[in-house]
């Protein structure tokens, strides 16, 4: 058996082990590679940066533990920016497995900025049937959410007094993976014309670029890379609060794994063509 044949028959578990090592070693010995920002991420940053303090904004954290690795750092970076700008943030989730995650991250980021629940931010919690909920938000938040996650009436929450529906928020920033992003596009942006930006998983990223080009989205965070770009833009805040830059750290690791995958792909192709050439010569 030639070396090419041996390479093509390599046990897949060896490849898993190599990927695992390529993902662990850069964590222990960080390379400190830079992350460049793209226009679609910069536009979200600029939009939030230009809002006046006290402006209401809606953050829909529609992700669950499956996509937490990508959407979590996105949501945290964006919420930190909103709190830094002293915006009034309404947080909600349409993901049934994400209710506790959204509560955890919103309270934890609020503590970093000493923000008060019900005055600076409100967490509405989870409701089922996303399309119906989004449509109702265009009429009145109180239809689907008469009370917030902590069972307090929306009418009794100080920061919600002048927030009736989607017309009263500057924008919706939707962080999630899957169909729910389509629903926000269809039922919130197209129906009620509310400015919309998405933070999506890398798998979903390419399907949302056309909406960026058509102007239906004003910004897009694609996967861990999008989160790392936002962390780069918020670098001063991360330094000031001494916070770990999880997405940037992740992207450094990502680069090493990608190099390994490229090498394995090239070696696999070279081996395949070398064997095919030898077989053709033999016949």
């Amino acid at each position: 058996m030639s070396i090419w044949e041996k390479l093509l028959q390599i046990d897949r578990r060896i490849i898993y082990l190599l990927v695992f090592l390529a993902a662990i070693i850069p964590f222990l010995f960080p390379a400190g590679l830079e992350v460049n920002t793209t226009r679609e991420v910069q536009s979200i940053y600029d939009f939030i940066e230009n809002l006046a303090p006290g402006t209401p904004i809606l953050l829909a954290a529609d992700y669950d533990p499956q996509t937490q690795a990508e959407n979590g750092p996105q949501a945290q970076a964006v919420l930190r920016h909103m709190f830094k700008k002293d915006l009034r943030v309404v947080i909600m989730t349409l993901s049934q497995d994400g209710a506790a995650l959204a509560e955890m991250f919103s309270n934890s980021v609020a503590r970093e900025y000493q923000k008060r629940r019900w005055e600076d931010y409100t967490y509405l919690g989870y409701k089922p049937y996303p399309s119906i909920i989004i449509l109702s938000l265009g009429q009145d938040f109180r239809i689907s959410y008469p009370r917030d996650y902590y069972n307090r009436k929306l009418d009794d929450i100080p920061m919600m007094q002048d927030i009736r529906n989607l017309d009263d928020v500057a924008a919706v920033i939707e962080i999630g993976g899957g169909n729910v992003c389509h629903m926000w596009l269809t039922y919130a942006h197209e129906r009620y014309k509310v400015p919309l930006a998405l933070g999506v998983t890398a798998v979903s990223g390419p399907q949302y670029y056309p909406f960026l080009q058509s102007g239906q989205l004003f910004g897009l965070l694609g996967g861990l890379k999008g989160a790392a770009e936002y962390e780069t833009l918020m670098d001063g805040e991360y330094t000031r609060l001494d916070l770990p830059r999880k997405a940037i750290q992740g992207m450094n690791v990502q680069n090493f794994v990608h190099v390994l995958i490229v090498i394995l792909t090239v070696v696999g192709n070279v081996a395949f063509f070398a064997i095919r050439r030898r077989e053709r010569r033999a016949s």
Partner: protein
Amino acid sequence: MDSNPWIWNTIAAFFTIGTFSFLYKDNPLYKIAESVVVGIAAGYFAVLLFWTSLRPKFWDMIVYEHKYWYVIPGLLGIMMYFRFSRKWGWLSRYPLALYIGIGSGIAIPLMLQTFVLRQLEATMLPIGFASFEGFSNLLVVLMVLAGLIYFFFSMEHKGVVGKTATFGIWVIMIGFGASFGYTVMARVSLLIGRIQFLLGTWLHLVD
């Protein structure tokens, strides 16, 4: 139960490692992790639906707010369950018809607007060679047309049509390539997320 986060993190780490152990081969540890996830997810969702939907939108409305017309959607919901009976199964068609009718009426015009009309509008762009943007727009128009011609089967793919269709399939392949690249990045991100948890949150070896 102890509220010490280390204990909870250790349980999470146990299930993470248990799930990853499938990469070596199927084993009881993986089976335990898989069953626990399925069981907890189903139970959690049932309880969540009760407290976020059935209780506030049905029970509370009727019992505490005395809005008795909420009985009607409640009955329609119950009628859905008649699907399990051969004799009374036809009753489930009424709520289903209502649901599909309302859903389609809301969704179809908005979907058409979002995914077809606005996207068509976005391909009607000022084209030219004088600027990068104009050239970029020209590429968008050509690629959209070539991609559409590839799926046009009423004419044989020969001559100009054939060459355009070949260009179209190349364009589609480039799109698939970009999607695949992003998919690899997404899967690696999930692995990175778990390693961040194991090395950082659980073992405190990294920040």
